[in-house]
């Protein structure tokens, strides 16, 4: 019953989205507002349908309805309650449902916000949003139906991928997809601007908050993904330049570039063509990412999850890229800049440089990701590109971006005078250089960390200087420090929100550099009652215990860890044996700290518990990544607060 009902709902939602897209576009030409109203109703209907479909799928999971193929493959009778709900997006078909539902939600928000305020752009925005939604509903109907009936009905399901039984997997896809789908809205406005010929600054002003929100969720998704990788996969790292990670990172890079370059267009009315290109690329890369991770053309060892879905995505990607760039080419005459770059030493130039770096990073990541394919096409050899390539080419680029982060927000528009440069940069440069020298004198030898430290101090110094001066100016009008700061943040929330986001990025940069340079590890076999030492920590192997969980068997190692200044703690790393998995899944245990984490993985062990092989890691500054994420959140909230400068 559920499969048929689900199918019917999906197909109806698809028809509504197709009708809505056509009606919204047609309403302009026909000049019939009734058509637009019908398109809006179709958007609401599609969202309702998707909500119903999602609830239906959750119901099927909760009641173990194995007549639904997707349920049988991603749950079994032992799967714990919460993971039966998150299993909804635990594999391909369900992730498309979540994606489409979010897109439908964004579409509704766009309808609410813009139906009256943007009468010219709005019909086309709605048409594009519903068109994209129709594609995802088509995927749900034909190549990847979540409601496919399973016949015969198996007695029990296969079960969720054990690696996904983790709290990070509850939030990671949600954040990531909110980011991915969020970029559809700026893209839709860009297309509307091209179609209507209103290619000025209007669409950019409207989509500013959308872009920031999408960018934020994408950042959050990437960070939570790193956290998941760190505490679940058990290799002690958070980023591996895996194609799946790269797929999410590329739109982040171009989205970041877009976020910055629109400021130049708003202020100077240049880079119109460039910004349109960036938003098309960003949206295209979100599709490309989905294509890459679901078509199995790259880095796939598992041959049983593929179908026609890759062809659908490639077809849609072709349609989007060819269509969008054709529109762009058609309007190219209107996109001529109305201003020009005055000097290399100006904020515009710094932002352009920032764009150049980000696009270069995107290109290198893209190249590395599709290189295996390229190599096979040209030379017939399958190769893979590993972390060394990505690190080698990207580290200098990211250091350059850090530098620009300090220079960009403070250098003058148009043409910086020596006075402007002296006033804003002498102290921060001295602080950065001084910090590096001090650290060197204290015995810090790693060149990468020193460079990173110098840049971070420079950027933080430049921002602090700016803040102190601005608050000082307000204090002269009689405010106290607190009131002055508050007034500044509220009145210039865009600028200082951006500063706080930059601060978050600095914290993350230190975390990355520190963890790469200073983390240590050892792998060894230890007898019961004996201990291993690493970086001042003594880890003692107490015993092994075995337990039977609802859907797996678990062997847990009991270890006590102590060092000079902390109370002894117990770490319980384990190996989990799932019947549906060939090899056991490691369960990491760790103690997080501001400066260092103790991180323990249980490897092989003797059945009688007499000895066990462990990997012990002391990872430095990894927590700064998560703290940076928090700072990023604060900054984003500040940046999207309603503008106080102009009366509403």
């Amino acid at each position, binding site marked *: 019953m559920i499969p048929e009902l689900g199918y019917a709902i999906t197909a109806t939602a698809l028809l509504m989205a197709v009708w809505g897209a056509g009606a919204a576009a047609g309403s302009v030409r026909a000049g019939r507002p009734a058509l637009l109203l019908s398109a809006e109703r179709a958007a609401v209907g599609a969202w309702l349908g998707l909500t119903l479909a999602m609830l239906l799928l959750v119901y099927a999971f909760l009641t173990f309805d194995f007549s639904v193929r997707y349920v049988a493959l991603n749950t079994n009778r032992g799967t714990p309650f919460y993971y039966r709900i998150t299993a909804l997006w635990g594999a391909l078909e369900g992730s498309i449902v979540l994606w489409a539902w979010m897109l439908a939600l964004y579409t509704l928000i766009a309808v609410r916000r813009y139906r009256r305020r943007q009468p010219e752009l709005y019909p086309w925005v709605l048409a594009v949003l519903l068109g994209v939604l129709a594609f995802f509903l088509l995927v749900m109907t034909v190549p990847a139906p979540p409601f496919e009936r399973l016949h015969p009905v198996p007695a029990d399901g*296969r079960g969720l991928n054990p690696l996904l039984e983790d709290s990070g997997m509850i939030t990671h896809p949600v954040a990531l997809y909110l980011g991915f789908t969020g970029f559809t809205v700026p893209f839709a406005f860009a297309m509307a601007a091209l179609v209507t010929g209103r290619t000025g600054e209007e669409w950019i002003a409207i989509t500013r908050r959308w872009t920031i929100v999408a960018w934020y969720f994408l950042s959050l998704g990437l960070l939570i993904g790193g956290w998941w990788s760190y505490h679940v996969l058990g290799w002690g790292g958070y980023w591996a330049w895996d194609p799946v990670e790269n797929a999410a990172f590329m739109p982040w890079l171009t989205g970041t570039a877009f976020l910055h370059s629109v400021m130049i267009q708003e202020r100077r009315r240049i880079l119109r063509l460039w910004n349109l290109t960036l938003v098309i690329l960003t949206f295209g890369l979100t599709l490309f990412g989905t294509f890459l991770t679901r078509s199995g053309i790259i880095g796939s060892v*598992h041959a049983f999850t593929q179908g026609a879905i890759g062809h659908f995505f490639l077809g849609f990607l072709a349609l989007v890229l060819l269509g969008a760039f054709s529109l762009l080419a058609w309007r*190219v005459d209107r996109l001529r800049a109305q201003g020009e770059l005055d000097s290399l030493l100006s904020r515009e130039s710094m932002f352009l440089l920032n764009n150049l770096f980000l696009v270069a990073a995107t290109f290198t990541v893209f190249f590395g990701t599709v290189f295996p394919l390229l190599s096979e096409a040209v030379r017939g050899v399958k190769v893979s590109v590993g972390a060394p390539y990505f690190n080698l080419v990207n580290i200098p680029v990211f250091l350059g971006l850090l530098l620009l982060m300090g220079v960009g927000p403070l250098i003058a528009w148009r043409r910086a005078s020596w006075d402007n440069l002296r006033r804003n940069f002498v102290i921060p440069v001295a602080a950065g250089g001084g910090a590096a020298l001090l650290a060197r004198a204290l015995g810090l030898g790693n060149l990468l960390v020193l460079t990173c430290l110098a840049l971070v101090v420079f950027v933080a110094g430049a921002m602090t200087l700016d803040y102190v001066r601005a608050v000082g100016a307000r204090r002269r009008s009689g405010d106290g420090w607190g009131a002055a700061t508050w007034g500044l943040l509220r009145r210039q929330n865009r600028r200082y929100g951006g500063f706080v986001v930059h601060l978050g990025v600095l914290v993350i940069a230190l975390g990355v550099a520190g963890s790469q340079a200073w983390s240590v590890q050892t792998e060894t076999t230890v007898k019961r009652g004996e201990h291993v030492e690493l970086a001042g920590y003594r880890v003692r192997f107490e015993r092994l215990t075995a337990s039977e969980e609802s859907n797996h068997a678990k062997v847990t190692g009991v270890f006590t860890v102590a060092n000079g200044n902390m109370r002894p703690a117990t770490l319980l790393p384990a190996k989990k044996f799932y019947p549906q998995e060939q090899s056991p899944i490691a369960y990491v245990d760790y103690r997080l700290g501001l400066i260092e984490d103790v991180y323990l993985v249980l490897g092989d062990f003797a059945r009688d518990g007499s000895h066990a092989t462990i990997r012990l890691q002391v990872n430095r500054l990894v927590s700064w990544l998560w703290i940076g994420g928090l700072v990023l959140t604060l900054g984003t909230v500040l940046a999207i607060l309603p503008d106080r400068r102009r009366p509403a």
Partner: protein
Amino acid sequence: MTARVALRAGIPLAVVPLLLLLAYGFRTDPRAIPTPLIGKPAAPFSLTTFAGEPVSLDGLRGRVVVLNFWASWCVPACYDEAPVLERGWRAWRDRGVTLVGVNIQDTEDAARQFLARFDHTFPNAPDLGGRVSVDYGVYGVPETFFIDRAGRVRAKHVGAVTDQVFERHVRALAEEPS
């Protein structure tokens, strides 16, 4: 004027090579997982069937062995091939061919229900600890290996076995002199 036309056509056309490259990705068949085992001696195994009887490769020397890896949740492929395998077993068991089912990544209850549903009469054993499937480099289910009378792996089939596939491989091996 021609420069403008070139520009207008050039912008969208710039993405075509990329699309072609991605389309090329489909040409590589992800199902064609190469196995280095072809022609090599098959890894020995010794299992206890669900019926409690021992079955081992050594004990089957001199017979053609069809080794099939399956799981009860593997729908529809394992369900599609189950009657094919039983038919093949009945047709060839007296002509020097043995079928061995290896149940992997599964729970015992679900596996027994599967066997009961299809009334399997050939030996079927659980692969406790997944050792045999690791030895044979099994990526997923179902996969089927065809082993000749001398104990060498001669062919591997990924996905559901059809009557034609079974017949083709088994006939070739059964007609070889031992």
